């Protein structure tokens, strides 16, 4: 699998240090090191407090009067935050000496607590690689995992983990406080005892929430699977790779394609990466990748035939059917995109390259020819099912590769939709005029695409994305059934969707240029642009206008995703492209 550090690595390390602290705290029963332990406990509590500060009880954009009543988990969050606040105050109040930085503690318990604090800090840093703030302090996302980091399932799992750590730590720290009899350390003892009590209170509150609404294993798996937001190296294939290496290559290229789609889907209208050449290339290569996904899922269904896996086989075959429909959708989109252009030409965005890589990697898996490429030409035989997964233990990994590819195709289809909408709204989506009848004497080689043309493209993207999502969901069901490593993708999609749907003003991806200048975007929506033409510069008014523009945009997209036909002769402007 991909060797990208994940949050679980750091949480496991923290758990391990806390476990060692509990096992080894007998050595501190004399209470000799009460001051050191207080100091180290404070380190742990500070980082725990920061985690809790990251968890907002309601979305930041939701007005207070709209706040829903607190759920059990909402109550647990507030109690936990209060408990850590009290614990910190007690420790600070009674701790009169702190250890110098980088000086190792003499106490084993203190050393393990320090190590746990360090692991938790690194884990929080990892989560923050997906997040950013705009100049107004509103949360933004740096990757497609940002929505997952802020999702209720991940937050509940995080609270449960913090509560587990708190409960483990509380007992040995209380023991140290009770064991110490020195008059010099009376204050520290008092502080440590009180802090331990507050950690127990935190744990009790979260346990109560867990009893009411349990954290599932899938929630915990999702939290642990959150990877660091760092680019994965591009897979380079020379044709000599064993099939098991091709699984990894397909997964890595899918992750890269998914991230590239997320980035390109939120580009401003002036971006030079928004070109018809890129849109066409992504549509063509995604057609091919969908075709490969269908081959792979059918081949896997063949591979498991005979075993008592009827449900699994059904999921795989339904996934293959859906991948076939996604391929047909991509093909129709590719054909439609063959009829348009943009004002910036002859440029392929990075997302187009990633999409090509995904087609290549899935093709190497799908076909028997180890040197297959997109330009290999006709007549290539599919890889026999037995070769696709030579050993039974390879089946989950082969399925993970196909599942990741289907999931990336879903992201790419939605990103295409956003890019088409953005280019159309800026008047940058063009059609060649040369093929028009002589009666239409247009003195330029290209003219803006008509709204009906744009509408048809948007609808095609929506249908394609839905088919790809269905293929991904079916592959996800199969992945869950055989515990393939990609099963977390299903939970990640659901969590991200829940956050997106719950927010009245969905958080936008981080935009470095916006953060750097503090200016509003050039490609303002219709209302915001109208206000600016009137000379309005009040940031509050412009922000409200942008919110209305976004709501309009969302309405158009929702309408475009359904079967509503535009009225003949209708005209509409495509508002600001954001999500």
């Amino acid at each position: 699998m991909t060797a990208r550090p994940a949050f679980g690595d750091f949480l496991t390390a923290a758990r391990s240090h806390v476990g060692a602290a509990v096992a080894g705290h007998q050595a501190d029963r004399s209470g000799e090191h009460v001051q050191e332990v207080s100091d180290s406990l404070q380190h742990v509590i500070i980082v725990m407090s920061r985690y809790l500060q990251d968890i907002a009880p309601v979305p930041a954009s939701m007005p207070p009067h709209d706040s829903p009543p607190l759920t059990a988990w909402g109550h647990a969050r507030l109690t936990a935050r209060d408990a850590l606040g009290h614990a910190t105050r007690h420790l600070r109040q009674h701790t009169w000496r702190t250890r110098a930085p980088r000086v190792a503690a003499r106490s084993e318990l203190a050393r393990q607590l320090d190590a746990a604090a360090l692991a938790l800090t690194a884990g929080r840093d990892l989560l923050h690689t997906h997040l950013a703030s705009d100049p107004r302090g509103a949360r933004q996302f740096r990757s497609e995992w940002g929505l997952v980091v802020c999702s209720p399932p991940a937050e509940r799992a995080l609270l449960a983990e913090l509560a587990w750590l708190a409960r483990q730590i509380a007992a040995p720290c209380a023991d140290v406080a009770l064991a110490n009899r020195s008059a010099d350390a009376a204050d520290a003892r008092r502080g440590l005892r009180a802090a331990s009590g507050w950690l127990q209170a935190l744990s009790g509150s979260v346990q109560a929430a867990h009893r009411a609404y349990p954290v599932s294993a899938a929630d915990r798996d999702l939290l642990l699977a959150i990877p660091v937001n760092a680019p994965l190296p591009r897979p380079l294939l020379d044709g000599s790779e064993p099939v098991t290496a091709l699984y990894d290559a397909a997964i890595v290229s899918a992750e890269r394609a998914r991230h590239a789609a997320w980035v390109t889907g939120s580009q401003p209208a002036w971006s030079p990466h928004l070109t018809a050449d890129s849109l066409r290339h992504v549509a063509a290569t995604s057609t091919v990748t969908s075709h490969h996904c269908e081959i792979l899922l059918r081949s896997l269904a063949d591979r498991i035939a005979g075993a008592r896996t009827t449900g699994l086989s059904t999921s795989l075959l339904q996934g293959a059917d859906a991948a076939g429909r996604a391929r047909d959708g991509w093909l129709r989109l590719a054909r439609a995109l063959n009829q348009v252009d943009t004002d910036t030409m002859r440029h392929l965005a990075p997302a187009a390259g990633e999409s090509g890589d995904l087609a290549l990697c899935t093709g190497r898996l799908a076909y028997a020819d180890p040197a297959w490429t997109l330009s290999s030409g006709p007549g290539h035989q599919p890889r026999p099912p037995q070769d696709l997964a030579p050993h039974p233990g390879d089946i989950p990994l082969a399925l993970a590769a196909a599942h990741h590819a289907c999931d990336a195709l879903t992201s790419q289809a939605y990103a295409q939709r956003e890019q088409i909408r953005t280019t159309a709204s800026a008047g940058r989506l063009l059609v060649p005029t040369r093929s028009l009848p002589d009666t239409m004497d247009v003195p330029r080689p290209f003219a803006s695409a008509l709204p009906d043309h744009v509408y048809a493209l948007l609808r095609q993207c929506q249908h394609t994305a839905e088919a790809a999502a269905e293929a991904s969901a079916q592959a996800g069901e199969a992945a869950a059934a055989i515990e393939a490593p990609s099963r977390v993708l299903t939970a990640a999609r659901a969590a991200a969707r829940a956050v997106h749907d719950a927010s009245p003003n969905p958080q936008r991806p981080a935009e470095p240029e916006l953060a750097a200048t503090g200016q509003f975007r050039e490609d303002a929506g219709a209302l915001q642009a109208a206000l600016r033409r009137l000379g309005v510069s009040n940031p509050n008014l412009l922000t409200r206008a942008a919110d209305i523009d976004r709501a309009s945009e969302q309405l158009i997209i929702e309408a475009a995703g359904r079967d509503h036909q535009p009225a003949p002769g209708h005209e509409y402007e495509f508002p600001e492209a954001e999500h």
Partner: protein
Amino acid sequence: MMDTAYQRLQEADGLAAVLDAAYAAFEGMVSVIHPVQDPASGLFTAFVMAAAAAADGRNALALAPSLPGHPLLTVPAEQQPWSGESPERVAKAVAGLSSLVAERLAPAAASAPDASDREACRHAARSARDICGLLSAGP
């Protein structure tokens, strides 16, 4: 349709005529490839990528300043459809046509007086070579 496009390209004389014939050839390729993009065919991937390359080539030529504003020759209606042909025959015909497009555009890419014409021809010739490679190669 492919035969007509091939003949026009062979007979084209002068930059404007070559650009016009090459543009029509790319348009013809797109229109004959789309109907034969059958997933059951071994040529499916090649046709999908070739259609995109043909659109790239056509759009590149559209920016050539010397391309006439309107087609110099309108294809008669009875010649327009090219349906019912086998994918293999379409592949062979398109590969041959794209090879000729690349061949005819190469001199223009090198010697056209206008830099924009040269750039358009270079890009379109590359697309034509890509199409030829996609549809000619065997396993």
